[in-house]
């Protein structure tokens, strides 16, 4: 049995975002990844929420799903923090514009907005939290297979 489609999507997005100019290989598909200085600037990818609608009168149904995927750009710097995060966002949004390929299927992905947070530490920490909606279908009893 394959992994849940959510994991397949996170993994596909990780592959797409690995090697960007600013964040390089510092990409994690784990919302709780504690990042050290050597991990920054970096990206965290995770699923935030999902809505689904049953399209079928028969069982098992067909689910039309819309997954909210979060890509967090994370940086820590005494200067240029916003500039770094904006540059990362530019690189991420460019790669994720339009579609992504997951397990051989092309899925629509749309940028839906961002939120910025920062806090002091030994150097200021900034997080630019970009959200994307990924649209796809699965059978209700097979959440590991895209249809």
């Amino acid at each position, binding site marked *: 049995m394959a992994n849940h489609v959510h994991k397949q999507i996170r993994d596909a997005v990780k592959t797409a975002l690995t090697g960007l100019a600013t964040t390089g290989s510092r990409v994690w598909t784990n919302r709780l990844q*504690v*990042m050290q200085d050597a991990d920054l600037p970096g990206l965290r990818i995770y699923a935030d929420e999902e809505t689904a609608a049953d399209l079928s009168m028969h069982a098992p149904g067909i689910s039309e799903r819309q997954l909210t995927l979060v890509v967090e750009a*994370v940086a820590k710097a*005494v*200067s240029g923090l916003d500039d770094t995060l904006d540059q990362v966002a530019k690189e991420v949004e460019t790669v994720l514009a339009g579609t992504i390929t997951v397990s051989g299927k092309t899925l629509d992905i749309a940028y839906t907005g961002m939120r910025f947070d920062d*806090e*002091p530490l*030994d150097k200021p920490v900034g997080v630019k939290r970009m959200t994307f909606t990924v649209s796809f279908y699965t059978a209700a009893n097979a959440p590991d297979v895209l249809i």
Partner: protein
Amino acid sequence: MIASLEEDLDVFLSTADFAEVALNGSTPISGLFDNGYGASFDVAGSTPSFTCKSSDATGLNPGTSTLTIRSSSWLVVGVEADGTGVTVLRLQEAA
């Protein structure tokens, strides 16, 4: 009561014990430097601070004043007086 507390602060902030000297320009300030682990948004780091007498912290301005501690330069980002003559200076690495 407050006066007696301030009088006793020299005992707690003695460099013969746990305190050390921070330089505000060329002016020495005795205090306690802490730089323990901290995290924000699951980013690891530290939370540097310097605890000193409030009378030594007058003239320090968040965002512009710097201190030299252990040969490193720290930007003062917060000046937090507790009302008993003690002030905690919140620090971050200077640019």
